[in-house]
């Protein structure tokens, strides 16, 4: 667009061309740093979301120093204390305590740790599996392509939560077990996305030139295919992390996620739910609010990343 005279550019800008949004990203990698920075600085909502996310990550990392009380300590004399602004509230329990006298705020702070840990690790693992399989499927073609893509179809044609539930029943509770299970349920979309990118560029002249120069398949896969797939993989990860965080909370709420003695937000909501009918709302409402805040921040950033990085929809911003 920049090669056009200014008058034509502004004429086009009046009626922006909005091509249909592609489901896959069949397009080459376009360095987008400038547009990225620009749209970032002009979007206040994204700035606020990023600042809050950084704050939440900071709180999660330094949880042991920030949390006022040990999250698992059961202070029996302080059971079901309401939040501090209530006249029955007591000092170190800013957001109240649950039925066993565990501090709600400390549980949230340590729970953020679990949520972020599960979110980043399981998305990271499914990214590695999916990217490698997607590269192989797109580059090798033939038997391996159809085998991998059939597996992708099988994975994507079942409800995520059902697959996760069945695996958790088989393997039992556990933090790392859950990270692995959620990673297994998430690889397929990466494989599909990466394969789409690889297919779109494998016939390009510069790839052929690389072949002619005698580069091996792994060099070509990493130097040409993988570089082109970075953008869509980044966008997909931003969408997957909040999904996985929600799934973790759901599984833990059902008692099929992390073990009971882990300070997880899903478990905290489940414990709070048991005392809801006696009017102790704080033990379930506050953990949920914190989870919602975390997921909303990541969702805002993911939306913005997709609009800014996905070449086909950039004009829509």
């Amino acid at each position, binding site marked *: 667009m920049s090669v056009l005279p200014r008058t034509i550019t502004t004429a086009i800008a009046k009626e922006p*061309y909005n091509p*249909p*949004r592609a489901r896959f990203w069949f397009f080459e990698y376009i360095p987008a740093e400038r547009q990225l920075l620009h749209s970032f600085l002009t979007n206040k909502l994204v700035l606020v979301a990023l600042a809050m996310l950084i704050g939440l990550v900071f709180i999660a990392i330094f949880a042991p120093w920030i949390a006022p009380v040990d999250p698992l300590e059961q202070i029996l004399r302080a059971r079901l204390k309401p939040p501090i602004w209530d006249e029955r509230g007591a000092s170190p329990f800013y957001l109240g305590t649950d039925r066993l006298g565990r501090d709600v705020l400390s549980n949230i702070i340590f729970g953020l740790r679990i949520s972020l840990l599960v979110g980043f690790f399981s998305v990271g693992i499914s990214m590695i599996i999916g990217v490698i399989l997607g590269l192989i499927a797109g580059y090798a073609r033939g038997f391996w392509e159809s085998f991998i893509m059939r597996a992708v179809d*099988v994975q994507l*044609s079942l*409800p995520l939560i059902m697959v996760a539930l069945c695996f958790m*029943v088989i393997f039992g509770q556990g933090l790392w077990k859950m990270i692995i299970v959620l990673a297994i349920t998430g690889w397929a979309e990466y494989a599909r996305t990466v394969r789409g990118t690889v297919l779109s560029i494998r016939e390009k002249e510069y790839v052929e030139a690389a072949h002619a120069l005698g580069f091996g398949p792994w060099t070509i896969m990493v130097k040409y295919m993988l570089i082109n797939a970075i953008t869509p993989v980044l966008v997909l990860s931003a969408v997957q992390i909040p999904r996985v965080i929600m799934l973790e909370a759901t599984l833990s709420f*059902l008692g099929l996620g992390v073990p009971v003695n882990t300070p997880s937000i899903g478990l905290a909501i489940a414990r709070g739910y048991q005392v809801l009918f006696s009017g102790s*709302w704080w033990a379930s409402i506050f953990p949920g609010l914190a989870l919602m805040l975390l997921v909303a921040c990541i969702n805002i950033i993911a939306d913005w990343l997709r609009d800014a990085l996905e070449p086909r929809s950039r004009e829509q911003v």
Partner: protein
Amino acid sequence: MGLYLFRRLYQAIIVFLVVSGIVFSILHISGDPLALLMPPDAPPSDVEEMRKTLGLDKPLIIQYALFLKNAAQGNLGVSYHHGQPALKLVLERLPASLELVVTTIIISLILALPIGVLAASRRGSMIDRVSLLGSLIGISAPPFWIGIAFIFIFSVELQWLPSSGRGTWAHLVLPATSLALYRLALFIRLIRAGMLDVMTMDFIRTARSKGVSEKKVIYKHALKNTLIPFVTIAGMQMGSLLAGAIVTEKVFAWPGMGRLFLEAIGVMDFPVIIAWALVTATIFLTLNFIVDIIYVYLDPRIRHEK
């Protein structure tokens, strides 16, 4: 068209076989089923005899074939806990789950269509911004937590609606709306994005230049084309809701399949767990197949494919 549907059906069968394989392995990975079936002090000769009668002494692959054969005849074993056929127990709970899921889908569709269309046709307006922010909150809030918040507000504090059980329509309001919020937000975002895409197509420009009124452009030309891909997503959401409703069924003590499944996990009642997974997968795959058929009829490009 026939080929397309055949391919989809073939794929659905493969998925079903994979699911049944995973589910079958639940029985075996989680330990010797006989340890659960027999009392711990049973003499070894009795255990061996039981193993023979149940076919558990045969190789795994033959056991799997037997399992498939029995499953095809609707026999998924007897519940350890209830002493009744597992499939019958699950199917008895199916209507309650379907009631919840169908109501949820209807609520979210009825609200999402006008909001999504309005937001897209008045881009940047107040309606657009409010719906965008609202749908962002909607997809960020865990449905089970929304259910808990609803119970606290409408059942505990205001005492307007019952918080648990099934029976009258009043029982349905809270579970269905709390489950619907997420789908509603998702549908609004999808319809809005789809409308914005379609509105840039050439045929919309043609319609406008012909002098077709803006209302007709939006509702007749744009909306119709937006809804074609949307049918697929709505259909798949309905299937995944059936599994996702488990949490809501737990929160509201709704007597559906999901609660039966959770109870079964609590007492390690494997036949019921297996029956639940197979019934859910079957319904999900059937729904997907129906959606494929509808899609073929809606999209002439697939219909005329040879």
